[in-house]
């Protein structure tokens, strides 16, 4: 007889309750489950991708209370009481694309599309953080998201286009970046 999934006497945990793309969710799961695997394997929210499971590629980027995080580096239990936004939660209810999503299509900032959900979510945060002030700054602050198809210049152009459309927040955390990033680029 096989054990039913998620029914482990010794590891029983109270349900993790969180808001996923505006909807309340309550899930019981083992303690070792990451937010990424919870989304993909338990909740069928497969828009968020798994490229490495160790925080090195950014394919799994989601917003946790509005900040970008690698979902593979967050235990599912840690999102209890918090708000998670994935790529599925960016477009309007009527399907109208988010300005960042539209910019990615218009600038052709994607090819195979596997890194794209992570890039798009990361770009939304990058703009909100005030890290989209210049091409160099965008490239620095989007470097946590690998794209092996290598759409990098188009990604920078897409972030720039969306930032211009959305307006960049004032007094962001970009000061430190502006002083270091250009120096790193010969």
């Amino acid at each position, binding site marked *: 007889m*096989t*054990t039913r*999934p998620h029914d*482990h006497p010794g590891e029983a945990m109270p349900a993790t309750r969180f808001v996923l793309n505006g909807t309340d969710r309550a899930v019981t799961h*083992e303690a070792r489950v990451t937010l990424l*695997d919870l989304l*993909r*394997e338990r909740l*069928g929210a*497969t*828009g968020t*991708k*798994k*490229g*490495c*499971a*160790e925080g*090195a*590629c950014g*394919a799994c980027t989601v917003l946790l209370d509005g900040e970008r995080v690698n979902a593979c580096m967050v235990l599912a239990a840690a999102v209890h009481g918090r708000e998670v936004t*994935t*790529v*599925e939660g960016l477009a309007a209810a009527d*399907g*109208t*694309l988010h300005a960042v999503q*539209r910019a*990615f*299509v*218009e*600038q*052709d900032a*994607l*090819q*195979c*599309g*596997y*890194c*794209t*959900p992570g890039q*798009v979510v990361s770009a939304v945060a990058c703009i909100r953080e005030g890290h989209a002030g210049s*091409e160099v700054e965008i*490239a*620095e602050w989007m*470097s946590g*998201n*690998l*794209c*092996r*198809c*290598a*759409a*990098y*210049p*188009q*990604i*920078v*152009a897409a972030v720039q286009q969306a930032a211009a459309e959305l307006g960049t927040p004032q007094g962001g955390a970009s000061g430190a970046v502006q002083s270091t990033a250009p120096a790193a*680029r*010969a």
Partner: protein
Amino acid sequence: MTVSPRTRDIHHVDIGTARLIVAPGGAAAALPETGIGSTERRLDGDDKVTGRAAYAGEEMPPGTLHGVLVTSPVAKGRIVAIGTDAALAADGVVRVIVPDDMPALAAPSVPPVAQSFVPMSDTSIRYEGQPVAIVLAETLEQAEHGAALVDLRIEAETPTVFETAETVTPRTEGNGYILGALDPARGDAEAAMRDAAATVDAVYVAPTRHHNMMEPSATLAEWRGGALHMHDSTQWTYGVRYALSGLLSMEPGDIHVRCPFTGGGFGAKGYVWPHQILAPLAARLAGRPVKIALSRAQCYTGSGYQPVVRSRVALGADADGRLTAIRHDTENVTSTADDYVEFGNAGTRSLYPAPNLSLTTRIRRADVGTPTAMRAPHEGPGMFALESAMDELSYALDMDPLALRLANYAETDPANGKPFSSNRLRDAYAEGARRFGWDARPRRVRARREGPRLIGSGMASAIMSTFRFPASARVCLTRDGAIRVEAGAQEIGTGTRTIFPQIAAERLGIAADGIEMVLGRTDLPETGGTFGSSSTISVGSAVADAADALRARIEGLADGTLPPREAWPALLRENGTGELVGEGGFSLPGDAPFDAHGGAGEHSMHTWGAVFVEMAVDEALGLARMRRCVACYSAGRILNPVTARSQMIGGIIWGYGRAMLEKSAMDPRSARYLSKNLSGVHLPVNADIPQEIDVSFIEEHDPHASAIGVRGIGELGEVGVAAAIANAVYHATGRRVRDLPITFGDLVG
């Protein structure tokens, strides 16, 4: 899955496409509004930016078990025992499959099977990372935990690696990895070298690298009665079918493979690797669907890699720079099971005419997995060597590097004397040089300094073989008046879901947006794999043919003229016709199953490019950066300038990775890769890449290579870039790097 209709209008914002296609004389070619050549944005873009696009491993039919491979930690030896008790006792583990459980398999045919050794078919260990057991469990976490509990007893032997292996001649008999003659020669290269006005002779190394596609390989295998259904991350659904049909002795028609989107592959998913064989076997043993997704670490041994290519190149030229002799000897690492040959001198055969030529192609068999094609195979590693040597020769002759290339321009293919199907390389050199400002480049090295940085520029030629496969396709006018295009081909990022509808749209005189594209399934018309830059040329031609057939059928219903689009549904109704279908195909001379550079035909087929790069080097910090890259190509007709530009930019960044970052280093004592993760393996990131990558294509229509004027582009973008970068670094600093990647140690001090 079908692609959803657009959720809202996508604007054709200016992304510099106006200067992308260059007409004769250097003027920008006018781009059509719709159909072939228009700047249509990806029709599957919405699906990819919203997360709707479905990749393998994202589907879980009820009852699916997670499979995790247990792999060998040693490279050579024999499995003595596999202890499974602890794993079986763990929560959720349903079964542990070991070699004893495996059914007998028929001999694999290589390719489509990637390697002739099938792991777990016996107890031998032939490479590190080889699967030795499979743990099946209810959840991913349980399967991963169970895999960690499997107790392996292995009798290990000392492995051989590239450095310690013997250099041998590859088997040609029955070897599916032989793409041409091993040792072409003409004249007397040695004698000509002695008489030459200038010579160079050096060894260049392009190291082993991995594909590192962002989607790790994944597969879902499900048996329904006697039929096998797979959702597999592959570049070749039909290849998976044929591979498994052979191994499992099944009718091909009983194997159904689907892959609507492939999350990158670059060759890693071209042929069929062990997990794709083991998942169906595990599913049969367990009586439940099984999903196996390789971990990132397993991707380094679970599929192939581009093998290290060591090239010795010697060139001799007369005082005017005309090559009198070329010598290019290559050797690559391969497994003990298969003589995989990386034809590092493929480009050398057809790029420059020299009366005396001597090429050799060798391998070294080591205790590693079988290598495989990777962007760009053959010409990719080989042209780094040849085009570096040409740069060295230009200094030996005190001649401009571009002038040296032009002095050695081939009017016909030096390999066989055939005329080229089409060749605009001369225009590409001129346009690239003009856009780059090559004329202003000082001849001397270390001539330009900006603050602490030395600035240098370098160039290289690019050449790539044209690969073609037979293909078939279908274009349908549905009962409700919609147009659907069907082909078994894959979408891997090259834009097939956009350009195939564009081709059908042009042939039918309608708009591409709104055409439904169905692909990536073995129940669709058969095509070759999506690799080797072969899809557009082969499948695109079949789509054009199918659209022509449909058009003829519509015209047939309407007295020989094509009625306006809006009238088509009524036409079907009036004639009592159901769906109207146009079948189309593309075949090769002599009905060959595959050909390279024109095969048995009258024309030689290659693609070309001219790549110019500017590098800035800070010797105090050992830091080099690419400041800009200008590349102009002769690749036939360009079906979509937007997606084509992205392909070439991607290729150029791959070339940057080859030059500056990538090397899959192996520990010679254990034959293990030192880093099997994305933090230890250096890949280009956004901040590495300058915004100024200027890609253009010479306007061209190849009348011979295909039915639609195209050749291929995907691989070409990678070729030549590493040489151009190394040549620019030499120009900046006077430091010649012949062993890639170029690192801190090569530049500092």
